[in-house]
């Protein structure tokens, strides 16, 4: 395998470069996926039936906590990749662990939000609006959940093998995924919650 030492380790082999490009294209597909979910939400947001409307259920405080947790986790994983490029394994792992903990925190608050909704009688079966809301948030939440498992698996490999072309490549791609989830959240935050409360 040819290793190009002039590049960061995650870009150093041809295979790694292919994987990074491939993942970017996957993120393009993810944009299309979330755009469709947003389409569904925008079309159905007025379809409240006999259920509550957005203004009735959205709570700014919960949303702000989730937003802050996810924004910070996006920041820390960026720092993790920076540390990885400096070759600092311990720092990198610390930042990754902080990221995953923040992600877990986000999930806890999201689940709590869902439970509150359900207690208020707003379930995924209540109305077109709520079906689309839960599906949009749920798809994002599932991505975060998947990310937690994935990130843990990568951390285990970094711990065991150190920084190799493979592990750095995986970590870098994972960071792209995590940042992307933050981008999606920004749009949920703006066009679901803030627009709903406007």
């Amino acid at each position, binding site marked *: 395998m040819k290793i190009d030492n002039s590049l960061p380790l995650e870009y150093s082999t041809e295979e790694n470069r*292919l994987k990074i490009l491939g993942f970017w*294209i996957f993120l393009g597909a993810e944009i299309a*996926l979330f755009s*469709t979910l947003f389409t569904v939400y925008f*079309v*159905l947001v007025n379809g409240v039936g006999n259920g509550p409307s957005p203004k009735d259920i959205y709570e700014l405080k919960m949303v702000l906590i989730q937003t802050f947790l996810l924004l910070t986790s996006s920041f820390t994983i960026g720092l993790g990749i920076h540390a990885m490029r400096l070759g600092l394994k311990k720092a990198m792992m610390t930042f990754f662990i902080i990221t995953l903990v923040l992600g877990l925190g986000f999930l806890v608050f999201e689940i709590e939000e869902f439970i509150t909704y359900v207690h208020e009688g707003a379930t995924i*079966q209540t109305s077109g609006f709520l079906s*689309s809301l839960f599906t949009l948030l749920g798809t994002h939440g599932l991505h975060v959940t998947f990310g937690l498992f994935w990130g843990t698996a990568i951390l285990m490999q970094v711990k065991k093998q150190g920084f190799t072309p493979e592990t750095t490549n995986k970590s870098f791609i994972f960071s792209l995924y995590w940042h992307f989830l933050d981008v999606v959240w920004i749009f949920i935050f703006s066009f679901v919650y803030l627009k709903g409360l406007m």
Partner: protein
Amino acid sequence: MKWDEFFVFTHDPMLFAAMISIVLGGLAIFVGLTYFKKWGYLWTEWLTTVDHKRIGVMYILVALVMLFRGGVDALLMRAQSAVPENGLLNAQHYNEIFTTHGLLMILFMAMPFIIGLMNVIIPLQIGARDVAFPRLNAVSFWLFAAGAALLNISFVIGGSPDAGWTAYFPLASLEYSPTVGNNYYSLALQISGIGTLMTGINFIVTILKMRAPGMTLMKMPMFTWSVLITNVIIVFAFPVLTVALALMMLDRQFGTQFFTMSNGGMDMLWANLFWVWAHPEVYIVILPAFGIYSEIISTFARKNLYGYKSMVVSMVAISLLSFLVWAHHFYTMGQGVMANSIFSIATMAIAVPTGVKMFNWLFTLHKGKITFTTPMLYSLAFIPIFTIGGVTGVMLGMASADYQYHNTMFLVAHFHYVLIPGTVFAVIAGFHYWYPKVFGYQLNERLGKLGFWLITISFNVAFMPLFILGLNGMTRRMYTYSEETGFGPLNMLSFVGALGLALGFIVLVYNIYWSARYSPRDTSGDPYDARSPEWSTHSPVPVYNFAIVPTINSLDAFWYAKKNKAPFFEGKYEPIHMPSNSGQPFLMGVAFCFWGFFMVFSWWIPAIISALGIFATMIYRTFERDHGYYISVEEIERTENALRGDKQ
């Protein structure tokens, strides 16, 4: 769920016979494999392969089987409509049959056939040793196969979907389609759709990053260009299908309110999402066909492709426009004149780049030296027939006129006039054209031409009458009609055409059998004196494709190398890195198939267990350390000498 609902025991002798034949066929394969002790061979050489050529062959094999099944569906439909008040099929069977005909032909025949051809050819055409992600490629195939298996199981267990391949809500909702048929729809399409999305990513990266040195984008063969653009469409269109199917599943199995008739749901949203995906899907199956025709026409006219640049530009234009026209499938849904006009104009605009391509092909023939081989015949027949499909498409694109064509046989005739010459002719042409590359011998020309004439003439006999029936007010999807409508004679004519088409396909299959036994072997690797790089390597292609990666300095570089008697391959043999085989993709496909099946019946615990199986294969993959293997220089020399026919 009661057992008699689970297994579809019907008193219909035809369906029962079909079921029995499926079971017997499966049993025969199983016994045969055991008897000839081929399980090991099957596992090591095929089920675990990551070789793009073999994956391509498997895609095409499945596509051919699906072509057979979809074709039988079509024959049954035409037979049922041949005479008024026919009792061959009842409404339920007819509805299931036209639904599965549509699904199978588009998603499990046309698309996999094309993906199969691109698997076999694209790496060869760009001078690469494999696709970018060989393992992912195998995963794509097995997910597709899992989806195909699931949809076909529906025929025997639980009942097939019966709400049309468009599955419009509320008809497809639990209330109006209470059988599990549409659960199969959502899950089978979902699983194979994920596989297709992965293919899309894989081929974009392959084409963008793995081209032979010197092959800039504007020096790529036209088929590669068309495949690149197709995969771009796949990557951005399939997520829409993923969402739509997920919502369908949620609505049917989890009680959500997306497409319901009360509580704020909206039935039209399904139609909207479906066509946001399904219109680009049409171009996914048409654009590679354009690429195949470009290759074949320029090969057998012995001339470079006319207007290469405008061909590329028009394909890019088509790919962008394909995302802007979906509403023309439901002009009659009651949106305003403004919305309909916008989508009308966008729709008709597609005719412009398509027309450009048409004239470019015609001018490729100009001053050429045309030989009428079987693939060339299909490509030439495509031009006049597809033009009929194209111009009727423009007619349908006019919103006002569509109020009279919508849902009629005119529409059915139109899309068959587009899809059969556009896609089916192309894959058959490509199949004949590239067959010697894969198997090392050509298909018989006489049988090929006989098949061609049968198929082309019968096609027109089968579908031309439908234009007239449509203008006479015959709607599609009617399982029966009365005598006084006067639809009888033309439907009978159409049935005769359908029989002819069936005969043509039988000749095609017989040709495969005949040629396998008697066709002379071709060792040159370049039987047509063709132009693009895939013809520069041996036939059949060695596992590493090219012993030395060629350097490309122009479009048709291989052609010019031959003409100038210059060497195409320069350099020394070097060890070649290859990916190793793996059973993980196959097992993942199996796990997906089980998961889908249990989900169809809402058996949650087995479904969760299968889902854990899927995750297990993923976890295995992330911890796996597989660096592939190297083929040594000596082995390359040995293989090359053997392929050149040198005796050792």
